[in-house]
């Protein structure tokens, strides 16, 4: 009896362990290393409110003064609107020239591209991913 219960528990644990992974396996996530969150500090170059993916472009300068051009894959405008943000608010937040600290999951291929998780401006204001593989909380 106890053995049967043990088998049921083990099967249940197995299924529950697999299902979230299966759910996480969709188109966007496959390009990025979702096991490691990276955070970089840069300056906003451009925010693109575009369908079906909005995007953030920002420049990161290293200690030697070399500039690397980064980009971030963000949510579809429809999802951002559904979460309560307007296009105007997004452009106001990501003003070109603003200092920004961006967290996300980087390309598995080493490109300076992340799927977006969070941005923090110099004044402390934050914007977080509204779902998808970049969402962290």
């Amino acid at each position, binding site marked *: 009896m106890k053995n049967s219960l043990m088998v049921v528990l083990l099967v*249940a644990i197995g299924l*529950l362990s697999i299902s979230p992974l299966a759910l*996480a396996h*969709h*188109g966007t996530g496959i390009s990025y290393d979702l096991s490691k969150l990276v955070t970089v500090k840069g300056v906003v170059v451009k925010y693109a409110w*575009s369908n079906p993916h909005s995007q953030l472009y920002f420049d990161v300068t290293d200690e030697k003064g070399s500039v690397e051009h980064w980009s971030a894959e963000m949510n579809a405008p429809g999802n951002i609107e559904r979460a309560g943000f307007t296009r105007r608010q997004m452009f106001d937040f990501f003003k070109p020239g603003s200092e920004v600290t961006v967290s996300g999951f980087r*390309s598995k291929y080493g490109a300076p591209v992340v799927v977006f998780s969070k941005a923090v401006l110099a004044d402390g204001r934050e914007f977080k991913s509204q779902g*998808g593989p970049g969402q962290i909380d």
Partner: protein
Amino acid sequence: MRNPLMRVFTGLLVVLLCSSFTLAQRGQRGGRGGNRPAAPSVPHDPHDLSGIWRGNPQTLSNQPPPMTPWGQEQFKAHIPSYGPRAVPPAQGNDPTGKCDPLGYPRTLFFGRPFEIIPISGRVLQLFEWGRVMREIWTDGQQLPKEPDPKWLGTAVGKWEGDIFVIDSVGFDERAWLDHFGNPHSESMHLQERYHRLDRDTLEVTLTIDDPMTYTKPWVSDKITFRLQPNERIREEFCVPSEEESFNQGVRNPAGGVVNK
């Protein structure tokens, strides 16, 4: 010895159940999974399907029936970015990566809300993704015998008891059946059975009969959509020029593809 072990397994099970719940909540917030619970159920008219509905079925069921040689050839040619054969989108050939129409029934599987709007002689399905409108003719007309293929096919509907039955034919085979690259031919016959179980729950079963692609009919799981009482259909287009810009700036480099 067994009892402590059992306690450990039971504890693990509880933790996993909680984590699954957290992920499910995350999916809801994310919009893609978006199956938010509606208000408590109240009496409803089972013949009234109107309202905004949402679910995230992705496909008919986990296991398609065996494919014919032609079906296998199409399946191999489709390189998806979802499921066990997933590659980075930049390395695949999912039609949606260029904003080509999803076609039907993939549109139903996409995870965005849709509205059912019954009008005289037709039932309309307005899908948020691309603001696609599908017409289901309820004026008694028959399905065409030799239909020209269309992205959404041609559909007629009728009530069988409390179930609204939609039969469709004439599908453009360039569209994938689902996110996973399962194919269909132009001769696919699709039947959908919509059953409003209560005010907030719409249960749909699909059957695909496509002997050119599958060796037997593919009957779906029971797919559930939930009423979204405070929702509206938003504007969500896939814009080819914007998608191309995204491909160049983000998707290609992220997926290890160098822009030309």
